[in-house]
């Protein structure tokens, strides 16, 4: 009797606690609902009268709350106009408070299916949900909203054209889009690819950057590093971690043939040469086997520990290494040219942006939201969302470059999270334009920042206009998207096979076998689609040839 009493008692207690919590959360929800409906009522009437005369509502700053969904599930932002200076600035200037929610693309699908999407939706431009939203009529065409409520909103024409649908409208404002017509003197698109080597080890062993200009010279330099068994930080330094597509680009693998058709880089003779070269490096012990299995984070750890001599990936950040050892710098070397003597190229960063931000067709505040997008898309706001509000977190110095304020630097050095919560730096990047940020970046003063800047500028000169080629990526959820995913997965395996092959003859054999396996995966259908996209993009941009070697 006693035992069952304790069981029942415990079970009841837990159920009651659960109900209590249910009461708590639902109480909050009801409270929020009441508040939202109260504030919605007066502002709805205000905006209703205001939208009748668009020019009169230019200064409508009545406080409203909008909901904004971002399909990047790591994103979290609590709107805090009291403590967060960026949020305070936005709310003071526009009257809008934003309630951010985030989730996976599947959650966005669920929201779409329920027919109840938030006021603003940010979606990755390659996701199938983008197509679904645009075709379903759930989001308003931005050009119509601009015409109706905010004709002064200047969206770069290249962005409008790039995202324009067959119905003639464009539906989203892109983040991280590089609009060439807006470039000022000295702006350029940079690259994440390059060839970098450790200066301190080079000085130690007497290697010069020019050694990396030829294949033989590079192999000799790497051999020196291996034979010397350089020790750093308790590790034996690995000579190289190279990516095959970067080396292929250095060898000048073309992406377009003489008649203007798309060429798949992976099947060119230059890429075969790159695989043979990397295979040679592997056989001599200059590039380890784990180069094919380590992921970016693990490679970054190795680079930050100082145990790598030469890399091709600019994203492997080595700032931590420099903090520990001011002599350890990665400087640009080479690039290495191939036997054919082609001009080397690197891929620039994606010019066509990352996410698209769209506006709900049924939102109560289309005029306020389009004005908010206008406000957030200015060059100065890009700087503000990246660094924090002007005046508090940064200001321009005499040369027009950004100078972070002392308070920001002090708080950031103490605890970057606290600085983020106070200044909001890097928390609202969904309409950001990186061009003004790059243009006004603080002049590098530390040796590693100077080196990085030099490295970036050096390889920026080797970029080509990749915009027509960006059109060939198939949208997720389509047949071609599925084939593309399978082909990419397949290529990873064959890449590893070729680089780790036992002989040069094997590399060639694998190279040809790969073509056969891809044909079985439906490669021809994918290629036809990509070539058509490529030709359409060239036509839209008014180009006959997109590959620099073809352009006379």
């Amino acid at each position, binding site marked *: 009797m006693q*035992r*069952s009493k304790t*069981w*029942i008692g*415990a*079970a009841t207690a*837990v*159920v009651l*606690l*659960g109900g209590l*919590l*249910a009461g*708590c*959360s639902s109480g909050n*929800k009801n409270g929020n609902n009441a508040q939202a409906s109260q504030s919605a009522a007066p502002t709805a009437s205000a905006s209703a009268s205001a939208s009748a005369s668009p020019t009169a509502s230019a200064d409508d700053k009545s406080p409203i709350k909008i909901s904004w969904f971002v399909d990047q*599930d*790591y*994103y*979290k932002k609590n709107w805090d106009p009291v403590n967060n200076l960026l949020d305070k600035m936005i709310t003071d200037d526009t009257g809008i408070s934003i309630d951010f*929610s985030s*989730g*996976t693309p*599947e*959650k966005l*699908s*669920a*929201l779409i*299916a*329920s027919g109840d999407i938030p006021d603003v939706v940010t979606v990755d431009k390659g996701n199938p949900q983008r197509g679904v939203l645009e075709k379903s009529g759930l989001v308003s065409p931005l050009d119509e909203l601009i015409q109706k409520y905010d004709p002064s909103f200047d969206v770069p024409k290249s962005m409008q054209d790039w995202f324009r649908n067959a119905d003639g409208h464009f539906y989203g404002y892109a983040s991280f889009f590089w609009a060439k017509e807006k470039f000022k003197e000295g702006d350029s698109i940079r690259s994440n690819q390059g060839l970098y080597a450790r200066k301190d080890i080079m000085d130690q062993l007497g290697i010069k950057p020019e050694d990396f200009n030829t294949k033989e010279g590079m192999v000799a330099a790497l051999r020196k590093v291996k034979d010397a068994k350089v020790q750093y930080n308790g590790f034996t330094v690995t000579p190289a971690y190279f990516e095959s597509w970067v080396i292929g680009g250095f060898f000048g693998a073309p992406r377009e043939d003489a008649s203007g058709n798309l060429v798949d880089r992976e099947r060119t003779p230059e890429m075969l040469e790159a695989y043979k070269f990397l295979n040679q490096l592997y056989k001599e012990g200059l590039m380890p086997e784990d180069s094919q299995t380590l992921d*970016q*984070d*693990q490679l*970054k*750890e190795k680079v*930050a520990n100082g145990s790598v001599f030469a890399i091709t990936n*600019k*994203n492997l*950040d080595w*700032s*931590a290494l*420099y*903090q520990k050892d001011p002599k350890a710098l990665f400087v640009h070397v080479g690039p290495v040219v191939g036997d054919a003597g082609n001009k080397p190229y690197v891929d620039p*960063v994606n010019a066509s942006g*990352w996410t698209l931000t769209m506006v709900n067709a049924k939102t109560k505040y289309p005029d306020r939201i389009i004005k908010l997008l206008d406000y957030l898309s200015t060059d100065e706001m890009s700087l503000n969302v*990246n660094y924090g509000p002007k005046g508090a977190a940064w200001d321009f110095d005499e040369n027009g470059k950004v100078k*972070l304020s002392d308070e920001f*630097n002090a708080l*950031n*050095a103490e605890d*970057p*999270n606290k*600085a983020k919560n106070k200044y909001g*730096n*890097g928390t609202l990047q969904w309409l950001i334009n*990186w061009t003004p940020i*790059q243009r006004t*970046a*603080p002049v590098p003063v530390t040796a590693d920042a100077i080196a990085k*800047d030099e490295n*970036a500028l050096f390889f920026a000169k080797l970029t080509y206009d990749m915009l027509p080629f960006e059109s060939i990526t198939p949208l997720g959820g389509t047949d071609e998207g599925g084939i593309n995913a399978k082909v990419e997965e397949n290529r990873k395996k064959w890449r590893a096979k070729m680089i780790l092959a036992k002989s040069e003859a094997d590399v060639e054999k694998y190279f040809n076998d790969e073509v056969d396996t891809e044909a079985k995966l439906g490669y021809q259908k994918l290629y036809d689609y990509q070539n058509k996209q490529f030709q359409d993009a060239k036509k839209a941009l008014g180009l006959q040839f997109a590959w620099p070697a073809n352009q006379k």
Partner: protein
Amino acid sequence: MTVFADHTIYHAYFITIMRTLAGTALHVAFTALVAYGMSRKALAGRNVYMIAMLFTMFFYGGLIPNYLLYKELGLLNHFLVLIIPTLFSVWDMIIMMSFFRSIPEQIIESAKIDGAGEYRILLQLIMPLTKPVLAAIALFTGVYHWNAYTDALMFTTKDALEPVQLFLMRIVTDSGAASKFGAQAASVMPEEAKQISPETLKLAMMLATTAPILIIYPFLQKYFVKGVLIGSVKG
């Protein structure tokens, strides 16, 4: 310390603990109730129920229908959406049902002869005898609730309802994402470099979430070791 720096993590722990306790207790109670009923031969239409339940076990409705269902029920953004969908599991019910069937009918008949009602038989006779299987199911459910984050991710947007797994996942993917997209930023803001590497953060997060389970498990272990059918009918 970065993992614990944000005070929201304590609230996230609270949500996870509450959902684990409430969800596990309710799950075991509801499933045991059904399993007991299904184990008695006297239940009319037992086969029909069985077939219906098996059908749901093999076919899953999908994320979007579930989302629409919870929306209509008003469960979205409510604490109960973390508990109500998990209240009953056919698989666990089948396990319990087999276990209940192994208890000899004579015990129940003897209790009925003594004038016991159905609830008294269940609570005072059957439950104590089946502690091992209840503990086992409770452990599985407990671990499920402790690790669950997809339901919170899909069906809630409020910070106040974030379990600790979701909260920590955001920290880890944020730092990973920051290192990918912030590569451009890193050249402009060297402070980013001083932040802890993603690998370290991942491992710290793993420790923060598994440590409580590791602490609790030894206390539950003895329930598996206890024998079955203590003091039951001999011979």
